[in-house]
């Protein structure tokens, strides 16, 4: 069974090699429309976590909805400032650098997306979004790591799954190899001079070579292989292509390093980065102000990333996510409090762009969740599952999202067929 399944999968679902296929297998195979090819055209997923719960309503603005303006007298984005997308929704003006990508159909927005769990705790909701098991706290690993555990079609290169930051986030925690890289240029052994660094690297490599066949030996081999690969790629000499101009600050630097890693062809499949500062309870601002500043940085960084990678964006999907959205009504401090559904952005060649995806529930009182928040009409696992299956080629989503049955029937069509 295992063998015939692999044959089937490798053949891209075109040939039925066995008549004894079980229905579950057929269900799984139906997800996999796209298979990984050679290394430089390998599909890549970049996840950006907007920690703190971004206000989806001011990011992707429902300017065609009267209730939006009634509920937000001080912080709504005036219709004349909104960068219109489809007559009903529009981008926050600070996201204007992304309009070009919308127009060339490589940017989509997903609205009213979120968790089936009703928690308004940042901690719980982030945890659920990263483990992929809303409501279940004891899940030890993250969904991106489980994908790597179960989809062994790809070779496990040391750079297959990389989180940019000092520590491995929950989404990549688990038994499949994954790296946390705080700074690409400082990855590897630290020593003031290159000669000392090379010497230490050689010495430790030899030490661990003698450690036999265990996990210590194999992991150290992977580590030194990664160091060598990076050394050849020489990240210190990086120049973004097409004069792409990353904004100053951590997000721009991180996205630039992800671009470097992609161009180095070291086998990156999943990259993850955090960007914080979205918890806008006080003086959120409107077209200008606190949220606007954060969105401007996000828009400039994403636009620079797409420009820098050029044709390579044909194999890349960038996905933003956030633990929940914010209240429809502004609060007494000209901010918003913790809500329910939010909006996400998907960007890249494989994205079915130029559309706002997902069923819009409306902002009317009776359409809201618990009378106050945007209702969730898309379970985030259906979007993540679609991207894993149709972009990365995952074959077993039930292993990635235990207790949930992602169904192609519920896929939003975020990835081009």
């Amino acid at each position: 069974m295992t063998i015939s399944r692999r044959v089937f999968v490798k053949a891209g679902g075109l040939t039925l090699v066995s008549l004894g296929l079980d229905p579950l297998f057929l269900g799984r195979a139906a997800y996999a429309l796209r298979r990984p090819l050679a290394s430089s055209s390998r599909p890549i997923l970049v996840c950006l976590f907007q920690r703190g719960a971004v206000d989806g309503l001011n990011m992707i603005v429902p300017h065609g909805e009267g209730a939006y303006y009634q509920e937000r007298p001080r912080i709504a984005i005036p219709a004349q400032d909104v960068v219109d997308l489809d007559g009903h929704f529009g981008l926050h003006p600070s996201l204007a650098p992304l309009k070009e990508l919308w127009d060339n159909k490589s940017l989509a927005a997903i609205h009213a997306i979120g968790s089936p769990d009703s928690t308004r705790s940042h901690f719980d909701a982030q945890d659920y979004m990263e483990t992929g098991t809303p409501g279940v706290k004891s899940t030890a690993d993250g969904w991106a790591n489980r994908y790597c555990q179960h989809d062994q079609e790809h070779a496990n290169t040391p750079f297959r799954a990389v989180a940019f930051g000092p520590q491995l986030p929950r989404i990549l925690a688990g038994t499949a190899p994954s790296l946390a890289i705080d700074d690409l240029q400082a990855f590897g052994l630290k020593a003031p001079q290159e000669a000392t660094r090379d010497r230490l690297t050689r010495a430790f490599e030899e030490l661990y070579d003698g450690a036999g066949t265990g996990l210590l030996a194999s992991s150290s081999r992977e580590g030194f292989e990664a160091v060598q690969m990076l050394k050849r790629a020489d990240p210190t000499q990086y120049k973004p292509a097409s004069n792409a101009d990353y904004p100053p600050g951590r997000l721009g630097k991180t996205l630039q390093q992800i671009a470097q890693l992609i161009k180095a062809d070291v086998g990156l499949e999943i990259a993850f980065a955090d960007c914080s500062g979205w918890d806008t309870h006080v003086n959120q601002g409107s077209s200008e102000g606190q949220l606007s500043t954060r969105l401007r940085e996000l828009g400039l960084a994403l636009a620079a990333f797409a420009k820098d990678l050029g044709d390579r964006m044909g194999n890349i999907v960038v996905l933003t996510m956030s633990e929940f959205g914010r209240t429809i009504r502004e609060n007494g401090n000209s901010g918003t409090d913790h809500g329910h559904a939010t909006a996400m952005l998907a960007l890249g060649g494989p994205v079915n762009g130029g559309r706002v995806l997902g069923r819009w529930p409306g902002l009317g009182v009776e359409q809201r969740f618990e009378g106050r928040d945007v209702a969730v009409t898309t379970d985030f696992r259906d979007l993540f599952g679609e991207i894993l299956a149709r972009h990365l080629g995952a074959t077993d989503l039930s292993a990635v999202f235990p207790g949930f049955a992602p169904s192609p029937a519920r896929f939003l069509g975020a990835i081009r067929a």
Partner: protein
Amino acid sequence: MPLSVITALCLLTAQMPAGSPGTLTARDSAFHALNRLAYGARPGEADSVARAGVMRWIEQQLDPDRISDAHLAAREREFKILDYDRGDLAERYRDAQRERQRMQREMADSYPLSDRRGGQGVRPEARPMQEFRELGGELQQLALVRAAVSERQLREVMVDFWTNHFNVFVGKGADRFLLPSYIEETIRPRALGRFEDLLIATARSPAMLFYLDNAQSVAPGSAPPRPMMSPFRRRRFGMNELPEDRPRRQPTGINENYARELMELHTLGVDGGYTQQDVINVARIFTGWSIERPDRGAGFVFHDWAHDQGDKIVLGQKFKRDGEDEGIRLLKFLANQHATMHHVSAKLCARFVADEPPDGCVDAAVAAWQQTHGDIRAVLRAIFTSPDFWAPQAVRAKVKTPFEFVVSAVRAAGIEPDDTPRLAQVVARLGEPLYQQPAPTGYAETEAHWVNSGALLARMNAAMMFAKQSSSIPDFDDHAQLVDAIDQKLLAGTMSAHTKSVILEQLTDINDPAQARTMAVGLALGGPDFQKQ
């Protein structure tokens, strides 16, 4: 045969438990015990424990109150956090929060603001915020200092074990100020007591009640007699995510979170034979177990008005309506279930013996548990005297966790950890930030979770840093003598021939003795031999 060897053999046979294979030398046995019951050996310690008799040393460790620990007591006085109780910390947290909100308002008013993490225009942090952050750093570093310098090593190991078994995430709301007292008052005094007492103490602790949401669990339809007095109203910082989660709602029903983790993680284990209905009934039993006045430190309180007044059945056992005592009876009942004994014993054996614990030591631990009604010391003694503990395949079979690696390196290298959060930051970089595991499972014990290429490179870098501060190895002109001294002092003579030859080869063109020492100590601490225990 030299006299010393004969003496060692006599000591070994006299001290070793019946049935243990005599393949380990007295020194190797002592080193093994120090690697598992302690955070590794300090230079020369394997020899001194071997001389005194390893089983005698183990008995001493099982009775920590009779071990004098003056050095640690002196070190603990450096930590301000030990002078503050829950109420003090709550007050400091509240001040820090107010300050943060004030600054947020100011920053928003003084648009355009720059990205605080982006580096431009970083504002000086207000004093209360900085102070509270420093206290958080102290909490982590205190754990490192205790593990590194305490003479009561086994107790420190068990504090770490139980803190992880009954994990509480320090980043969740009120747990930012409730965690210190959880460690000091709930876990530490009971780490070698009776499991049942520890279980009850964690169940009643404000930190756990908040972390697993039981503080919010009320019988459906119940309401406080005087609404204005409800702890869920007028909170200056509230129940779930403080202080941002502004629109407060009265809790309206039971919360199953604690009930589920109590059975799945703390007691019976995931295959412990309970059903979803049992989870619901356990949650009903704990309705009304809550905390009062988070702004004053949130003491335990039982709200009779919130308690489900019906009878409940758990695992076929009936719990008659009896208010708060229902919960106590249930905890005692769960603590003595066979599934609990097995689950917790297997976890202890995974920590002390092997990632995949052999049945023999688990059975011995369960038997001791049954005989002593869950006396943790008796359970540990059964593990330490089981043949599985001393089997050659158990020796050096486990990879150190990041915390164990850092503490053992500090001990071996003769580094006195300071009171800055520096070492705690190293542990975090290696993947195990203390008290920051969000999931109630705690951190994993098995090597698959700790060994990966990035983490190993980080261990090597940490080892080179420790080597520069090391004081346990003197300078030698002769490289062979240097490597031999490192083998004896850092690894109690267990360094592999391969490691020795690689280190020697690396030293060939280094003439400066200090430079050679740093290189050799770094390679030894960062190499494969020292990763194992």
